[in-house]
């Protein structure tokens, strides 16, 4: 009985402050739509970055004097490093074949001998495919015996990392701002409902309702606002992904399970802001 009473009173709060409730739901909807679109962009952007970084390899050139045996020893050492996923050994002969494949002429035709050095092609584990880890690894490799030079697309990797950081920090800042705005709006809506329902709160106190009992409908109201706004946002993100996939880019990945974090966030922000508002404003009645 008391449970349904609380739920019913929670819904009544909606009707009492219709305009501010609608505004709050709309703002939860928009802030969560933004978060959802951000998630959608992140999922797709990181897949694109991963595909690119997957192709990143370090080429470790050996000293001209190093022979096959030295190369095998070095390969074994490199393979044992924690950052390394795979090492491929390119002998002088294979290097010559690669040259021919790339330039269409044999190295012997151009230079009469094969000056191409032996090398190791190093693939990194996904966690280490960033500028910082690569730099550290390259410094380590350079110090090793028989290593002449390490070549890799340093500039591109640094650039991607820098932009990724800017995008993430910018995105998270905007999202935090949106959440703060949503907090203020819910806080204020609950304040308005509390004032709109002053009479009922006064009677509740008079007939001996406990504080918790008086608070509950307002918390339910905050939760409901959060749930409605965020579920609408989840629907909208889903719709937007379908539209993009059908009309713009068929390779679009959906957000998947993390989309439900929007519902969690909606419920949380609804509950927390209602709690703060109730704690502050119920006393004033």
């Amino acid at each position, binding site marked *: 009985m008391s449970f349904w009473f609380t739920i019913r009173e929670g819904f009544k709060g909606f009707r009492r402050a219709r305009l501010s409730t609608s505004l709050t739901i709309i703002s939860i909807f928009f802030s969560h739509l933004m978060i959802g679109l951000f998630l959608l962009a992140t999922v797709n952007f990181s897949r694109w970055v991963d595909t690119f970084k997957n192709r990143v390899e370090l080429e470790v050139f050996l000293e001209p004097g190093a022979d096959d045996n030295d190369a095998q020893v070095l390969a074994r050492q490199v393979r044992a490093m924690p950052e390394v996923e795979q090492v491929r050994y390119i002998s002088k002969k294979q290097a010559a074949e690669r040259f021919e494949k790339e330039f269409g002429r044999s190295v012997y035709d151009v230079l009469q001998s094969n000056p191409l050095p032996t090398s190791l092609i190093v693939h990194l584990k996904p966690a280490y495919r960033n500028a910082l880890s690569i730099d550290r690894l390259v410094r380590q490799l350079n110090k090793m015996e028989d290593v002449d030079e390490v070549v890799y697309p340093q500039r591109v990797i640094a650039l991607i990392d820098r932009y990724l950081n800017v995008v993430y920090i910018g995105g998270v800042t905007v999202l935090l701002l949106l959440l703060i705005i949503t907090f203020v709006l819910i806080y204020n809506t609950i304040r308005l409902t509390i004032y709109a329902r002053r*009479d009922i709160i006064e*009677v509740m106190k008079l*007939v*001996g309702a*406990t*504080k918790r009992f008086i608070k509950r409908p307002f918390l339910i109201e905050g939760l409901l606002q959060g749930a409605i706004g965020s579920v609408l946002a989840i629907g909208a993100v889903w719709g937007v992904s379908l539209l993009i996939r059908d009309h713009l880019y068929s390779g679009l990945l959906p957000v998947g399970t993390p989309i439900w974090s929007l519902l969690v966030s909606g419920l949380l922000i609804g509950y927390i802001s209602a709690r703060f508002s109730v704690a502050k404003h119920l006393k004033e009645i």
Partner: protein
Amino acid sequence: MIEFYNVSTRIREQMILKDVTFRLVKGEFAFLTGPSGAGKSTILRHIYMDVMPDQGMVIVENYNSAKIKEKEIPMLRRKIGVVFQDFKLLPDRNVFDNVAFALRVTGVKGREIRRRVMRVLAEVNLGHKRNQYPASLSGGEQQRVAIARAIVNNPFIILADEPTGNLDAATSLEIMQILEKINRQGTAILMATHSQEILETFGHRRIIVRDGALRP
């Protein structure tokens, strides 16, 4: 049952009660009288502990204003019925629900609510109007609903703050008769009023307040 010991209270820097001491015994009917602003309502608010004394103490049944914890106050209020001049009914629910409200917020079960509400509505002769909304009732009927809500929890005392202040003489008499009936059933009544007519018609003990202090 209700005891005030040298109670002095300031509200917003203003002295409202000065050294008030009195006692109300079980089942008593007493009037609290004096001019407007003398402190009658503040005395009533001390009893349901909406206001706490700055000095002295108020004892209501087993509760002492100096020792009561905040979470005990709702329990105290369930044993006290309060009636106001402006009724304080909820306009968005009918007579039955207004009375049932006092039981619902204290967690009484559905069937029990129905039984008790119907009983108290019969007691104030409003059973037939249980589905009407407060706006469609006369002042006297609204006050009877408020009284029904006040007694539905079987309180040991009814605090009535100028319950006839908004009513004509005939209706006031009707309300007084209901309060008398409730009192005869054993519930104490402390009623604030400045109506000479009521004071003279009903010869109960008078507690006179003037400028926040009791007069002999």
